């Protein structure tokens, strides 16, 4: 189902849209200009803070996105932090004890978690916990009582619980695999043998010696995960009807609302660039060997 907003929606209102209305629409959104002029206009406006107008909401794109960003962060921030943490701890332990019974069990469980797409985990979670067991709400961000008492923090957290759990599951599995690989190469290093020879306790070597060195490659990936706000939550938000950027993206896709999509993806790209920069700046803090030049 390709097509732009007008052919998709306005014309479906009975095919009787007068020509003048169509032309007026094209003129207002600048769609009658040649493509390169549209592009120059777009770039100019971006730098002026004008990210365009959404077709379906008739609202400026930027405030719309920033408003939804807040809701996405509510579920994404805790799940990314916890997911990275769980993934690192289990991955480090698994790599440290590689070949043991615990390692194999965790490894196979993680393969399974990772092989199942997150939208399927989300659907299963809704089906099981909301539909059959009725422990959690089926979707949305607040109950009906919002009409009398306003948005309650507890109520929102209650609605956020399942989406957060599903996100934690998929983020943990991704980090686990990388952390385990990273640990597998560190375990064979000489300084680990030296530490063992000194008679240090195993746990001390694992968390103080090995962990410090395995963490480096993870930093880049972890910062990039913070940036993948849209990709990370688009499916989960859609299944849970959570009113964040992911759901906004799905709605914009279905309505062919291009200005809104452009705005969302521009934000995503900016976040990726910022995250790369942050990772580069974090590196010398974690690894003194990279600190060069200015300090000396």
């Amino acid at each position, binding site marked *: 189902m390709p097509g732009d907003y007008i052919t998709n929606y306005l014309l479906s209102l009975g095919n009787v849209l007068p020509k003048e209305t169509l032309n007026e629409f094209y003129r207002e959104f600048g769609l009658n200009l040649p493509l390169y002029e549209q592009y120059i206009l777009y770039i100019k406006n971006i730098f002026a803070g004008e990210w365009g107008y959404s077709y379906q909401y008739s609202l400026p794109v930027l405030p719309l996105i920033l408003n939804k960003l807040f809701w996405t962060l509510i579920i994404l921030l805790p799940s990314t932090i916890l997911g990275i943490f769980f993934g690192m701890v289990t991955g480090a332990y698994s790599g440290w004890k590689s070949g043991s019974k615990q390692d194999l069990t965790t490894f196979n469980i993680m393969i399974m978690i990772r092989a199942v797409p997150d939208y399927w985990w989300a659907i299963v979670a809704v089906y099981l916990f909301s539909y059959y067991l009725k422990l959690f709400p089926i979707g949305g961000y607040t109950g009906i009582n919002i009409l009398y008492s306003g948005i309650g923090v507890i109520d929102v957290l209650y609605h956020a619980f399942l989406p957060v759990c599903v996100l934690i599951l998929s983020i943990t599995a991704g980090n686990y695999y990388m952390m385990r690989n990273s640990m597998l190469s560190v375990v064979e290093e000489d300084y680990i043998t030296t530490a063992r020879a000194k008679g240090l306790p195993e746990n001390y070597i694992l968390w103080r010696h090995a962990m410090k060195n395995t963490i480096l490659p993870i930093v880049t990936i972890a910062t990039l995960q913070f940036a993948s706000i849209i*990709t990370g939550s*688009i499916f989960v938000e859609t299944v849970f009807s959570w009113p964040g950027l992911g759901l906004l993206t799905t709605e914009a*896709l279905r309505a062919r609302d291009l200005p809104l999509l452009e705005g969302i993806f521009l934000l995503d790209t900016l976040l990726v660039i910022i995250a790369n920069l942050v990772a580069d700046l974090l590196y010398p803090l974690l690894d003194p060997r990279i600190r060069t030049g200015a300090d000396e």
Partner: protein
Amino acid sequence: MSRKKLFWFSCLIFFAYVAVAVFAPLIAPYDPYTVSGPPLRQPDSMHPLGTNATGQDILSQLIFGTRITLIIGLGAALISCSISVSLGILTGYYGGAFDGIVMRGIDIFMTIPLFPLLLVLTLFFTPGIFLVAILMGVLGSTHSVRVFRSQVMGIRNASFIEGARAIGSRDMRIMSHHILPNLIPIVTVRFVSSVLHYILLGVGLSFLGLGDPMVIDWGQMIEQAYSSGGFALGLWWWLIPPGLAVVGLSLALAHLGYSSEEFYNPRLEKNRY
């Protein structure tokens, strides 16, 4: 279950899926695109998985969906691997300015978030299944180029390559007959994992309503069941089967991937009992 048994078991499952895809017209009881009964029928002897909201047989849709899903996954992986292998060999073997230009291009390309770009492009073009496979393959190929390139750089100056050059082999022949065979293990591992990746991506795209409306795949089945009442009415036979089909295929491919990685890289297995 030991890894070896798991490997053969996954192989079996994967080829079962392939067989279902190939022989779909023989297995499926109905034509999945025509109405074959009253809508929203519960499972019975006529329709083992019931019918959907328009009265199409769900089991037949599931069987034909295997075809589409596998075409998208295998096609995209094939395209992506051929692009990345040839670029990897060329840049790794020749090096120099050519290598520099291609690598900087890939660096720039890799800062663009892939999934959003894919969404916009499928939205922009008419999303036929082959076009979706090509788009995914081309966009996803950049990630593996670096891996293959570094492998090639490692063997570029090996003595057997030097020997081949000494007896007067041309560059094309060295690349295709001496370097490529050495890449086969890592290419196999990459191929299996990218088939898995692209299948999940393709199903995900259809789930978001970006699938080809002319054909039925599992993502669209899940989407339809989810959005047109199958979920709210508790019609599990509509929603669960396509999901389980995805999960089964993806688990088999995941185990194939990890097993082949260990097969070619025994160091990963060293610490195992």
